[in-house]
């Protein structure tokens, strides 16, 4: 695994949790690489994707992975709900933000969005579309939490609800979940998604 090769290995001193850099980068390459297994990381590092999303990484061995991403001038995001070993609470967010220096966190929970914003990292809140009856309450929760970005899953539902979401939530949207073919990516981008998130390496430009 690639690690930083500076004299004093470690995290960058100033972590960039600013949205402007991310928005500009997605303007050029609108894809985030989702890392499900460590062995997928080198390919993501070598690609042009501006952001890497870590799912299921072990929290207390995450530092070198995050720093390898940042050493390639990419932004590193960690899915706190899925990460092993870390409390899903303010202390867990503070650890990711201060000790590891992630650029952003991903969560389904409104309470963690506020904690992420307090730590000045980018907050990506997942809008999980498994049930149309639950959509209005899920959108109210997001409207109240005000994350920086909404990640809508699964991608196949996005075209069905894009107008409803955009009228309720004036936030940038990343579409993820079973985005496995170029047609899925294009369908999301054509309907106004800021980017797609995908674990399919063939879609990492």
């Amino acid at each position, binding site marked *: 695994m690639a690690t930083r090769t500076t004299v004093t290995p470690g995290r960058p001193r100033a972590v960039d949790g600013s949205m402007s850099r991310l928005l500009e980068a997605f303007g050029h390459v609108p894809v985030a690489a989702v890392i499900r297994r460590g062995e997928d990381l080198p390919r993501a590092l070598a690609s042009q994707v501006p952001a890497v999303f870590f799912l299921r990484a072990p929290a207390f061995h995450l530092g070198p992975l995050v720093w390898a991403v940042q050493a390639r001038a990419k932004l590193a995001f960690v899915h706190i709900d899925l990460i092993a070993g870390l409390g899903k609470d303010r202390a867990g967010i503070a650890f990711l933000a201060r000790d590891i220096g992630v650029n952003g966190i991903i969560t389904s929970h409104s309470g963690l969005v506020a904690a992420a914003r307090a730590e000045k990292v980018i907050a990506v809140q997942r809008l*999980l*579309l498994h049930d149309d009856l639950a959509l209005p309450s899920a959108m109210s929760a997001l409207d109240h939490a005000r994350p920086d970005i909404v990640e809508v899953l*699964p991608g196949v*539902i996005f075209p069905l609800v894009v107008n409803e979401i955009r009228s309720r939530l004036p936030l940038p949207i990343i579409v993820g979940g079973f985005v496995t073919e170029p047609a899925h990516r294009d369908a999301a981008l054509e309907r106004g998604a800021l980017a797609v998130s995908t674990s399919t390496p063939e879609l990492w430009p």
Partner: protein
Amino acid sequence: MGVMLPAVRDGASLNQALDLGYRQVLLERGSLLSIVGPLAGAARQGVAIFVNLDAVEGLAPDSAALAFLATDLGFSGVLSVKPHLLQEASRFRLRTIQRIHALDSTGLETGLHSLVSPAPFAIAIAPAVAIPQVMPIIRSITSTPVWGTGFISSAEQAAEALRAGAAVVSSARIEVWRDFSRTPVS
């Protein structure tokens, strides 16, 4: 041929489904206790009633609630994301339908690999609209019958999920219940 399972939430939608001739319904939302009389009456007349234990109000997720559904009300089955609740339900001879969210490949595979013994009667994939896309992943892991719930807003979407291999598809929309019988499922 697949089956449409109307998802009802109150007495009015229950009556609409029954008036259209459906002999099976899913109580997907709302308070079970507020329409327990009509539901029990339908069950006595042979209508198969399924309950989403994760979303209906008024029931605890415990064996007393399951005994009430199975023994007092004569319901047919229950849906839940919780494997242990379904294990308990199988003791009351309820049909057990394991709900699994198909939101991304990581979550779907985790859900499919967490199926426990005794095997559920079926798995319910949510959203059902994703079934055509995810059926290969499902079938690579389990041969359990597949139901679908969520985001079915047209008879064509229901037919697509059934063509992809789902045995049962649920929708909360009366238009879909009406149109469904006119849509041939090949």
